[in-house]
């Protein structure tokens, strides 16, 4: 897959995983596992990128006698998901056009 496209899709996947409630690293990986296999290093890079873009914020909370980082989605992050959905429907209509061309051949 095109690297730029894949990067965008992964970013939105992670944002979708924290959309309903703040989540932590391991839970994000587990939640996304049925759809996409993410390594720890990849997730770290994505989280850093999204934090830098203001799409999420990080809070630290105590859990079982240790500290755990929770990732919270921001308005920018929610907008990013909405943009993705809008772009995707556009892309899907292009896909249908391309797939139709295949059938015609």
């Amino acid at each position: 897959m095109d690297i730029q496209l894949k990067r965008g899709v992964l970013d939105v996947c992670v944002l979708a995983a924290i959309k309903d409630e703040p989540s932590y690293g391991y839970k994000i990986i587990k939640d996304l596992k049925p759809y996409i296999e993410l390594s720890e290093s990849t997730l770290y890079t994505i989280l850093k990128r999204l934090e830098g873009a203001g799409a999420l914020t990080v809070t630290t909370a105590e859990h079982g006698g240790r500290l755990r980082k929770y990732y919270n989605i921001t308005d920018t992050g929610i907008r990013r998901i909405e943009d993705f959905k809008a772009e995707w429907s556009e892309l899907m209509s292009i896909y249908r056009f391309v797939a139709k061309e295949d059938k015609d051949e």
Partner: protein
Amino acid sequence: MNKTEFLDALRKALSGLPNDEVDQRLEFYSEMIDDRIEDGLSECEAVSDIGSIDEIVDQITADIPLGRLVKERIKTKKKLSGWNLTLIILGFPVWLPILAAAFAVMLSLYVCIWAIDISLWAVFVSLAGTSLGSVLLSVVCFVQGNIPTALAMSGTALVCVGLAVFSFFGCKAATKGVIALTKKMALVIKRLFVRKGDNNG
């Protein structure tokens, strides 16, 4: 390998990276291991689930721009003792030409690889050009009534088209190979800066 051993080994392997970057990464992996243990895995299972240190280091190295790695190396160099600094300054006439020569050799090798690739493409272009020219020439000869030459030219055109198609795939593969090699070389150069940190750590 238990969690402490894993984190120690990772810290050592990453010692060429900026300190705050290493701390943040280790904190992240530590949390990941703890969460796996909480999920029912044993400490060793949790660590092996994270992946091998080499893989992690490669991925992190690929993520961080070369400029930052070099900057971090220069910063570490500042901590040199006076004696080492004197040696470096006195050795300047020796190490600078050697370094420059090594760099020039590397660069010329790299340029050579691209030159081979470009010459392959040149072969492709000339074959394609020849086949086009032969087609035109055979048409002209045919019109002029020079049938034997027209036949010979169309034969040449066919052979050249065939070779051009063949060479196109070869050229494409060669270019892809050179690009892959460039990426690999970039990673090796970056790794040089990260792994060298082992001596300081």
